[in-house]
């Protein structure tokens, strides 16, 4: 079975319509855990996208050689290998980020976005399409992490990517960079996305305009 979408649509769908976090609620653990600052969200998103792209490349290339019965185990081994690569790379070149993210980097292995894309897409499509699909999903994931991280960092520390945005008058809302802030912010973002996607609302907008 191969997808009938155009190549561009294959990339675009991951950004919003089938966004892994906002539309399918996948990969919530890292989404909530590492987004107490924009930089952490970006690093996590990039690491996940790297693993997603490389395992898609590998699995779509090998899709006719992996026996159907043991495919999940095969995917997991391939994914875990690339996660080890990403983890060692971060530890060697960006030790500070690696220390902040801690066990959440190895936990990319069990990120359901990655296994989900392999099972649903890369194992059934060619290399080119699989890479585009993974890139779309990865960029969509990075966007959510950076937005969530920026909101939490802005309200919790008064800065974005470490640059002070709000002045001294602002008392940081400590709770935003603590665990409850993650749940609350994501809950409100999901509600906003529901509101934006609501078909009855867009119909009303068209009638008015």
């Amino acid at each position: 079975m191969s997808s009938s979408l155009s190549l561009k649509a294959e990339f675009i769908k991951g950004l919003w319509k089938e966004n892994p976090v906002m539309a399918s609620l996948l990969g919530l653990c890292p989404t909530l855990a590492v987004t107490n600052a924009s930089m952490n969200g970006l690093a996590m998103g990039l690491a996940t996208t790297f693993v997603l792209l490389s395992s898609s490349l590998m699995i779509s290339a090998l899709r006719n050689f992996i026996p159907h019965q043991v495919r999940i185990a095969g995917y997991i081994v391939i994914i875990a290998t690339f996660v080890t690569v990403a983890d060692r790379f971060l530890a060697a070149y960006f030790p500070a980020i690696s220390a902040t993210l801690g066990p959440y980097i190895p936990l990319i292995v069990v990120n359901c976005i990655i296994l989900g894309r392999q099972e649903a897409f890369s194992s059934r499509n060619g290399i080119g399409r699989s890479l585009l699909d993974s890139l779309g999903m990865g960029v969509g994931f990075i966007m959510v992490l950076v937005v969530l991280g920026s909101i939490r960092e802005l309200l919790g520390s008064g800065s974005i990517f470490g640059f002070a945005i709000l002045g001294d008058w602002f008392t940081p809302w400590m709770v935003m960079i603590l665990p409850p802030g993650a749940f609350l912010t994501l809950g409100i973002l999901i509600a906003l996305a529901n509101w934006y996607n609501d078909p009855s609302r867009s119909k009303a907008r068209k009638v008015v305009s």
Partner: protein
Amino acid sequence: MSYFLLFFSAAIVNNFVLSYFLGICPFVGVSKRVSSAVSMGMAVTFVMLITAVVTWLIYHLILVPFKVEILEYVSFILVIASLVQLVEMFIRKMSKPLYDTLGIYLPLITTNCAILGLALFSVLRDYAFWESVVFGLGAGAGFTLALVIMAGIREELELAPIPKYFQGAGITMIVAGGLALAFMGFAGMI
């Protein structure tokens, strides 16, 4: 650290779900009914206990002596995946009633990040054998506690007038935020 303190810390103070965000998928997915939350919690605790024992043995008796710690992630995830299958087959043969309660939840556990997280944390914190067993039990108890509280709240929520756009995942996240806030109250205890 005494075993009791370790258990208490893993179950309540540093609750896996509410302060490490591990196992969020089942937390959102299987928390609609208290009865299924209890079964899922039991299944996870059971697998966590076995995982704690097996991954400790593998890390300290195989990976460290042969100096291949770099294979940690690959071997842990493979061991967990096959362990879950083994447990499932074992329970099906041994106890039919237990299988009927836990059966459908077991395959889901493979991709539950709380299990791999448990194995990684006990390596990272350099736990001795019994410490890592107690840590596994505590983490399982904490997971069950969070799941059951959440399911209780969600059963009540069905009767509540929730704003249209917050229905489903939105309100679940907000409630989880409230729960996490409540659990933060334990933070000063250890």
